[in-house]
């Protein structure tokens, strides 16, 4: 082993200058930036297709705004439980962390259940499919299912991710001094909430 390699192997890993707490947090931010561009690309494509279509339907006439409002409220609530969980472990309250994380997981699972109900209703009673709307060719369904489906996949990943963090929390992995992974998981979950805020406006309300 060279002298330089020997020195490196004994040194502590250098701190990230942007996120002194951990490199993991910086890594999550970089991932979220890339993910945001994926959603941005999908939303831009949606906008271009909608503006270029001569007979794009009014979303409120087809989609259930009331149900989606409940889903939006639910996701906002889970963002609060997520930060409350982080706050709890930063104050050394381990049961509080697990309780708030489990509430977040339940909220996310409920959101997915409501989305499944919405999709099922739209496909069977609403006449919306990937390629057709009320029996006529339309890109409305394709843009709707791709955007909400991509977001739903993120919610599903978040639920699994937070469940893993909650299980680790139950096993006592996190303390008031060591809780970086909780904060990193929280960043992901809040991002999912943030993206839904935009999807709700552009796809459902506008």
């Amino acid at each position, binding site marked *: 082993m060279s002298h330089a390699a020997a020195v490196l192997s004994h040194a502590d890993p250098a701190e990230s*200058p*942007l*996120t002194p*707490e951990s490199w993991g947090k*910086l890594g999550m*931010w*970089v991932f*979220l*930036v890339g993910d*945001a*561009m994926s959603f*941005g*690309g999908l*939303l*831009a*494509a949606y*906008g*271009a*297709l*909608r*503006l*270029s279509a001569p007979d794009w339907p*009014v979303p*409120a006439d087809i989609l259930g*705004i009331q149900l989606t*409002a409940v889903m*939006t*409220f639910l996701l*906002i*609530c889970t*963002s*609060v439980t*997520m*930060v*409350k969980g982080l*706050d709890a472990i*930063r*104050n050394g309250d381990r049961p509080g962390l697990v309780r708030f994380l489990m509430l977040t997981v339940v909220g996310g699972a409920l959101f997915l259940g409501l989305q499944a109900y919405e999709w099922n209703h739209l496909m069977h009673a609403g006449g919306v499919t990937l390629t057709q709307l009320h029996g006529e060719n339309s890109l409305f369904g394709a843009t709707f299912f791709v955007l909400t489906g991509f977001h739903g996949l993120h919610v599903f990943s978040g639920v699994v991710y937070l469940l893993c963090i909650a299980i680790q929390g139950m096993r006592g992995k996190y303390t*008031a001094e060591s809780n970086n992974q909780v*904060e990193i998981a*929280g*960043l992901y979950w*809040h*991002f999912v*909430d*943030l993206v839904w*805020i*935009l999807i*709700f*406006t*552009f796809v459902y*309300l*506008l």
Partner: protein
Amino acid sequence: MAHGTAAGSKGHAHPSYMAIFWWLAALTAVELSVPFLLQNAEGFALFVKASSLIGMAATKAVLVAMYFMHLRFESRTLAFIAGTPIVLCVFLMLMLLPDAFA
């Protein structure tokens, strides 16, 4: 909005999360009323509807990023990195506009 701050163990004060929650809930309620108040909007009314909805969504997104994701308390360089997609997505949308109106 930053009233009622509490000190976090990371050394910075965070705002009252419940205050942010109520702001988000209130903005969502106002957003929901817009499509009903401005049904079948055309022309200037459509512009008002679209700009108010986009403005409220952007405000909510900023609240989540700044306070729930703690971006307000991070280094400025990290905030610039986090803001990169906004610039690129606006650029992408502008580039797609000619196709949209073709």
